[in-house]
């Protein structure tokens, strides 16, 4: 009997830290929705622990972080460490918001696989996600 397999990318969009500006995160969440993805949106003021717990329970294919506060240097390494501790380091993490050019290298060194500043197009971001998760079997990331 034929199995009607239906795979939808599941993407977590999270706002770590204390800044209260979630317009960017919502625009991305909406755009990914319109690209046919299932977007789990966490809302504002998430701790690194909350974000990683959500990524774990929701079994997401990618995690997008929106940070405008300048606290990325503290938040991102912590999130990446927790991802590793929970054996979620195979899940790509991408970053949006205000990341100064001089920090990009540092951020990449933490394991972040994509950084999208204010000029990035929606298409760039969706292409990045599709590129990252294509070719994987459902639930077969290891």
């Amino acid at each position, binding site marked *: 009997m*034929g199995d009607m*397999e239906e795979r939808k990318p599941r993407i977590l969009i999270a706002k770590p830290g204390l800044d209260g500006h979630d317009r960017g995160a919502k625009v991305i969440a909406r755009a990914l929705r319109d690209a046919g993805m299932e977007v789990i949106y966490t809302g504002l003021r998430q701790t690194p622990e909350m974000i990683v*717990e959500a990524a774990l329970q929701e079994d997401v294919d990618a995690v997008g972080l929106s940070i405008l506060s300048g606290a990325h240097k503290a938040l991102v390494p912590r999130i990446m460490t927790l991802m590793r501790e929970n054996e979620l380091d195979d899940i790509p993490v991408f970053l949006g918001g205000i990341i100064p050019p001089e920090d990009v290298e540092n951020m990449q060194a933490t394991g972040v696989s994509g950084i999208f500043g204010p000029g990035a197009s929606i298409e760039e971001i969706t292409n990045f996600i599709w590129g990252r998760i294509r070719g994987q079997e*459902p*639930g077969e990331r290891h």
Partner: protein
Amino acid sequence: MELNDLIDEARRGSVRALARLITRVENSQDAARAAVRTLYTATGRAHVIGITGPPGSGKSSLVTELAKALRRAGQTVAIVAVDPSSPFTGGALLGDRVRMRDLAGDRGVFIRSMASRGSLGGLARATSAVVLILDAAGYDTILIETVGAGQAEVDIAAAAHTTLVIEAPGMGDDVQSIKAGILEIADILVVNKADRPGAERTANSLQAMLQLGPTGGTRHHGRMMKTPEVLASQEDQAWRIPVHRTVALDGTGVPELVELIDRHRAHLEQTGQWFEREKQRSRREVENFLLDQFMARFRAVVSSHQESKIVEAVALRELDPYTAAEQLFQTVD
């Protein structure tokens, strides 16, 4: 990872394995079938509570408060929160976690967001299989939050032991409350946002609606027709649907709501209705799977070309839709 390994690890308490198993079950009916087959004998322990109501009535906030209260009582809790998929792109924005931040960091709570993926009854097709998996994984209580429901999304009643219908003040006049549909499936009616103006009126009109009908309200007609013994046993069997007021934002009325839920469970168990509901659920599930099997066989036998030709004939008014369906059915027979 192999499905069987995921099942084993999920039962041993691995959250990662549980989460991945759920994804597999959502994506593939073969996986759902295999997982349910393996786990079914380990299910039937959890109290499954459905929470439904219109968008914005406060379902997610109330689910959060309920989960907190259940945790205080020492129970483990799993939450399945369903949001709608876009009928155009198939995408979905699952935002129920936004209201559930208070539950973060508690290993006794598992939250899973789920897209409806085209199902129209307020749940997703895979919801029942996912609930069985959570049951087998050992969660004491499973809270299912439906898609924001209007009037007719009543699938939850068959999926849950106890159904809460949440209303908020100001959602309509008295006639709304005697329409058929969602209000009929409530085991407990909750007027949330009870600190808002109009809450009293909403509660009163719901109460009045209950008293108009034979279920849960007074039953004068039955009283006149039945012998005292029948009457007494019916009195025991009857569950009087309570109308309960809460303010989910500050937790007002939530402990009492948990008490009502416990009382409903006790009622189901004492009257044998627990098993009745299980039978109802089982029947529905078996029939759904039967339908799936039939559709799969249909797809195997009838080519999409053949089907399109008949559908076209219907569109051209050369064939009526009943006859078309009969012709297609006979091909499979």
